[in-house]
């Protein structure tokens, strides 16, 4: 059933611009096969949620996409380039157009919020002036509503604030695609809601494409245009939240109970 659905989806989407196309992706760690023939297409401007249990290879998938891990087989095309084939400089050019929000925020402990935000800017865009950097930092902080924290250290911030700063750091490069690695994990429901709202806002404001990894149903319901259920390293089912909720597949049903 899923394959049929997938095939129809593919046919439909070929006409629309795809920013991310993953085909026949395999990845294993030793004898542990994490991804087996995974396929996915993400269209420009949509918000895709990848749903799966812990350890089902969601994070591995997203790290393959950004080039942190090299897949064993298969292609990952982003902006028309196959990520696994790129060398270091080429991959950096792609990364400058992609944002990545880490599950643990990954704010640099030894730097202030300002330096955290400046870091990717200075790294990717070497030819920016100090004024430009300053204004972009302020703008990014305004987007997440935390301008007052500019000279604080990450350790002084609460979990929700850190998530927002991490989001601001992701935003500062004006990415075309943002990859969210479990954005609401470890947050209280209210803060999680705020973050999801922020994500929606940003997507609308900057017209970005989002790929969200999550198992938080609340997040999936509000943030997703499409949901992909990842089971045993394979794309088990694709559909909108509502479609999947009605699904008879016991494995899919399991997630929505």
């Amino acid at each position, binding site marked *: 059933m899923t394959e049929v659905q997938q095939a129809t989806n593919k046919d439909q989407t070929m006409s629309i611009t795809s920013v991310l196309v993953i085909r026949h992706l395999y990845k294993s760690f030793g004898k542990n096969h994490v991804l087996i023939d995974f396929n996915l297409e993400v269209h420009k401007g949509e918000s895709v949620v990848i749903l799966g249990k812990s350890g089902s290879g969601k994070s591995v998938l997203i*790290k393959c996409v*950004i*080039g*942190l891990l090299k897949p064993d087989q298969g292609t990952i095309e982003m902006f028309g380039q196959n990520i696994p084939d790129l060398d*270091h400089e080429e991959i*950096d050019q792609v*990364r*400058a157009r*992609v944002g*990545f929000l*880490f*599950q*643990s*925020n*990954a*704010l*640099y*402990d*030894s730097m202030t919020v300002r330096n955290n935000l400046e*870091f*990717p800017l200075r*790294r*990717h865009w070497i030819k920016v002036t100090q004024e430009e950097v300053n204004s972009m930092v302020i703008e990014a902080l305004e987007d997440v509503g935390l301008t007052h924290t500019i000279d604080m250290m990450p350790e002084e911030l609460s979990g929700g604030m850190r998530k927002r700063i991490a989001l601001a750091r992701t935003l500062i490069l004006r990415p075309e695609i943002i990859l969210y690695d479990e954005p609401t994990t470890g947050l209280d429901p209210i803060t999680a809601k705020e973050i999801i709202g922020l994500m929606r806002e940003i997507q609308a404001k900057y017209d970005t494409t989002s790929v969200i990894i999550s198992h938080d149903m609340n997040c999936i319901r509000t943030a997703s245009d499409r949901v992909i259920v990842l089971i045993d390293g394979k794309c088990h089912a694709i559909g909108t939240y509502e479609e999947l909720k009605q699904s008879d597949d016991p494995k899919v049903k399991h997630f929505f109970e």
Partner: protein
Amino acid sequence: MNRDLASYKFLDDAGDLFRFTGRFFQQWFKPRYEIAEFIRQCYIVGYKSLPLIGLTAFIMGLVLTMQLRPSMLKYGVEFELPAIVGIAIVREIGPVITALIFAGKIGSSMGAELGSMKVTEQIDAMEVSGTNPFKFLVVTRVMATTFMLPVLLLLGDAISLYGSYLGVNIRGDTSFTLFWMQVFKNLSFNDVLPAFVKSYFFGFAVGMIGCYMGYTSNKGTEGVGSSANSAVVLSSIIIFFLDLLAVQITDVLGFN
């Protein structure tokens, strides 16, 4: 079976460490050079370690002098005290104690820092931000420890000798000039240079092992703690092995 596993794991770790070191040399030459970060690391690794190294060196010089005095007195060569202490400090005590304290302070902090960066995905974040984390984190740190330990050693030696001078004067009366002359009169290049050169290797070892342990840290806070711990333990052991190697090399080359 069990023993086989342990030795296999040891060899596996050793291989990893050598591979990591090879990666350092491979990345070291290539641009881009993280000069600003290197200087920042030098400041942290060198300047910030000076109070600790200085304090231990001072106490070491003082204690060594006071401990040696009775024996020297027994053999009636009390006036040679500055010379003996000078040689002991410059040749062996200075480099090894400085390196051990350095390993304790810097090795553990690097293991913990890089370990927690690894665990909280900061290393991945760096890579995503268009930075080669190995270069930015490891190469700068290893270079900083390699170049700062010899400087720390020199200052530590100077402070240690001053401590020794005070130690000599607790029960004796030697002018600073005389003390200084007696120390230098018995020192030769063969005492100073091997000690100075080996401190580069000590610094390299401390940085390399600290970074390796942190960079390959396992997930979880326990992983961070154990990388800090094993960074100190392993680099301390390596320091002694390098010291043994150094003394044999200098012996063979006739520098003694």
